[in-house]
């Protein structure tokens, strides 16, 4: 069953609502025990990087998650800060990330020339899927999602970038490595585009 990881961050109910409307079974896990039946994992997140990592590390779910994702290869998608913590580290904090997708999270204004870029990056931005990524099936021509963030994911390897968006610079707004996916935007609040993406994830 699709399992949403509830470590106290992110709009859990919005994901539940999307899947309920799609008649796709979904559950919420608040402990390692509750994670065990997961066939797909959703890792939401909002706020600061260290706060998110701190909460996840203290949730009692960390070890089980590592095993499910790295050993059992259960598909997982990180959303917003849930995507950023897939990286090794972040400009925003000092705690190590999960390291499931090699890379570092950068502040937009750390990029030369973008010192005065309006932040947070807030609103609907066009998204360009890079290669045939199953997450973006049906959105190859027209994809638009809601963003709300000031940091972006810088992949160590180009091949891990699943989609790009342009705001000040072209940045990786979606990443994918094996069974690990991440999206910077909020599919749970992106109308039919987001519903389609979450449906695609359910059908992986």
């Amino acid at each position: 069953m699709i399992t949403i990881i509830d470590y106290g961050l992110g709009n859990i109910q919005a994901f539940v609502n999307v899947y309920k409307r799609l008649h796709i079974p979904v559950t919420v896990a608040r402990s390692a025990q509750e994670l065990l039946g997961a066939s797909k994992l959703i890792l939401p997140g909002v706020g600061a990087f260290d706060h998110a990592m701190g909460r996840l590390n203290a949730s009692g779910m960390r070890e089980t998650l590592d095993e499910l994702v790295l050993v059992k290869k259960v598909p997982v998608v990180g959303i917003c800060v849930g995507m950023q913590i897939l990286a090794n580290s972040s400009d925003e904090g000092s705690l190590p990330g999960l390291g499931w997708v090699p890379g570092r999270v950068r502040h937009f204004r750390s990029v030369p020339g973008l010192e005065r870029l309006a932040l947070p990056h807030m609103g609907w931005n066009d998204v360009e899927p890079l290669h045939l990524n199953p997450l973006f099936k049906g959105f190859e021509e027209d994809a638009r999602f809601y963003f709300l963030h000031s940091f972006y994911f810088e992949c160590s390897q180009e091949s891990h970038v699943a989609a790009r968006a342009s705001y000040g610079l072209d940045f990786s707004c979606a990443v994918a490595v094996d069974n690990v996916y991440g999206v910077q935007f909020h599919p749970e609040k992106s109308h039919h585009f987001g519903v389609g993406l979450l449906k695609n994830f359910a059908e992986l």
Partner: protein
Amino acid sequence: MLRPRIIPCLLIQDSGLVKTVRFKDPKYVGDPINAVKIFNEKEADELIVVDIDATVNGREPNYKQIAHLAAECRMPLCYGGGIRTPEQAKRIIASGVEKVAISAAALEDPQLITRIAEEIGRQSVVVVLDHKKRLLSKQHDVWTHNGTRNTKRNVLDVAAEVEKRGAGEIVINSIDNDGRMKGYDIDLAMELRKAVSIPVTILGGGGSLEHMGEVISVCGVVGVAAGSFFVFKGPYRAVLISYPSAAQKDTLIFSALKSH
């Protein structure tokens, strides 16, 4: 490309939806949940919901209603009204709201913006500045408590200060233009855009897509919000909730940005 945001702003009084003119004469326009459902279907960019009684009556936010709205809402939701502490803001965010709007409390204690931003992240902190033009002057003062208290502070100065304190977005709302549907205060919108480097949303006076296009052609990628325009139809202000189609919005945005 980041697109300008076209945002319905809904006012709540006694749990019902109302619309005012110059912050007065609230007219009942329906049930908030029903309105949210319609904006879901129309795929609105975002929604702002403000409880206009909470601060004036010194009341807590109506958490039950907020949670209900958030659960129904399939687009990003910003809630304002009666928020005075980081704990209240946190509780509202936890119920599934993306952004909280603060106004009176932030003007009394600007430190509050910083404290709320530390708790929920600055991207979720919106400061709403209700403003009114000072008589025989070009200055716009910031007012609070539904336009009954004048802080006598210049809206542009306040905007710059709240940005420094940790606001993630500023909404300016013209009391003079509220409900009149005669167009936005474009000059002020432009000055605000220059004064801060966080996203801004312009509210007050919107009566047509052309009015919205004017703001976008002058200010570029900003939020443009309206109340009456999305809830009334025709010269007799019949209640009819509407929102432009995706095609109408594309035409509006691209022609406005071309002349930007």
